[in-house]
């Protein structure tokens, strides 16, 4: 079979498609869980909402540490930590956990910056009216902070999609791993890696354009009614 026939073989195309879905679901799940966790970390850091010093310290230590560890190293630590704990989890779980841990560290910083961008008087006015911390957060602060937090989150998500390629190192069947498989089957490295590069490009570029569109939408939209 010629190289092109090998490549265009339905089995191969299915392989590419499945691994593309794997990358996508890994990114979506990891970012989703991670951003949510990061959101709570940011709340823990805010003394108006969680006036409990150890929570604050935990959030700070977590964020500063997990921001500064490369993805590959985090992946290894997560892999062996699960092993150590005696938990027999799937490679997907390990990868999602790593992405989530990374996303949480970023989101913690992002949400914190977003909340800080709201003038302190908004908090004070709410507090002086006896609106509790959570009420103020939910009804006053967050509606104003969302538009500030979303653009950086979208940009960062694109970066995380790219990071998922490292998950190929533990044998997870995502896009980058698919490229290796293709070369093993006899497809040239140029075609294999070239295709994968294009697929990543399409995914990331689309996300970036969506983020740009969203940023414009957020800048011009009317604030929601509380």
């Amino acid at each position, binding site marked *: 079979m010629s190289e092109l026939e090998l490549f265009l073989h339905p089995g191969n195309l299915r392989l590419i498609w499945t691994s593309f879905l794997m990358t996508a679901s890994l990114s979506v799940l990891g970012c989703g869980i991670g951003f949510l966790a990061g959101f709570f970390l940011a709340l823990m850091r805010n003394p108006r909402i969680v006036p409990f010093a150890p929570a604050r310290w935990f959030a700070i230590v977590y964020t500063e540490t997990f921001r500064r560890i490369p993805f590959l190293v985090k992946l290894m*630590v997560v892999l062996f930590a699960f092993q*150590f704990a005696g938990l027999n989890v799937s490679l997907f779980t390990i990868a999602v956990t790593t992405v989530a841990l990374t996303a949480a560290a970023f989101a913690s910083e992002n949400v914190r910056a977003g909340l800080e961008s709201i003038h302190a008087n908004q908090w004070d006015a709410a507090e002086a009216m006896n609106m509790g911390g959570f009420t103020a957060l939910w009804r006053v602060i967050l509606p104003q902070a969302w538009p500030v937090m979303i653009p950086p989150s979208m940009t960062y998500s694109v970066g995380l999609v790219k990071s998922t390629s490292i998950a190929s190192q533990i044998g997870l069947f995502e896009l980058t791993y698919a490229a290796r498989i293709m070369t093993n089957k006899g497809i040239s490295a140029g075609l294999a*890696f070239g295709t994968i590069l294009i697929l990543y490009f399409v995914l990331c570029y689309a996300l970036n354009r969506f983020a740009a569109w969203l940023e414009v939408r957020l800048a011009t939209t009317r604030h929601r009614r509380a």
Partner: protein
Amino acid sequence: MGYTLQYGQVAPYLGYLAEGAMLSFGLAAIGFLCGWLIGLICAAISEYGRGPIRWVVRAYVVFFLNTPILVQIFFLYFALPDFGILLTSFQAVTIGLSLNAGAYLTEIQRAGFRSVRREEREAAITLGFTRLQAIRYVIVPHIIKVLYPPLSNQYILVTMTTSIAAIFGIEELTGRAYNINAITFRSLEIFSITALYYVALTFFASTILYGIGRYLFRIKAKVF
């Protein structure tokens, strides 16, 4: 690995790991410096150039910004031989790092140039400087102040990215961690210590960069 953590078993290798950190530093330095130069040239072309060369630069930046560095290096290492270009793993990694960093640094420095063009005109008008004086006393200090924080930030990011080199057999920090793991099998201990090394490394780098920024250039921005 067993059920007990035995950090004692990996203690003898801490120095070996530290040496790897130095190689990581070297890789980052090469990648960042080359990337910075590439970025400078491409940013200049983007802002001040004319014609098709600007499209080439745009394509380069957009491509490298939207694809993972690991796959970029895989391509350099595995696919280029088909076109007659044989790279060692070290070459592939450094070229990949440089090209990747170059794309980010193009965007950063482009923004820097943009912020300056307006200043340029205003300074010349209001202060009655000659062109050269304006450049020396207003524009260059402004560019330095604007670019220093994002450039420092990018340097830290490049340092973290160098861990990819381990996949290509290069014995920088992560690579050495793999080696030690292969010998001792104390995987969790080794990689957790490696993680701490990176944290220390980046803290150290950002402190020094902050210090340089603060005392040499009087820039008060936080680095990373």
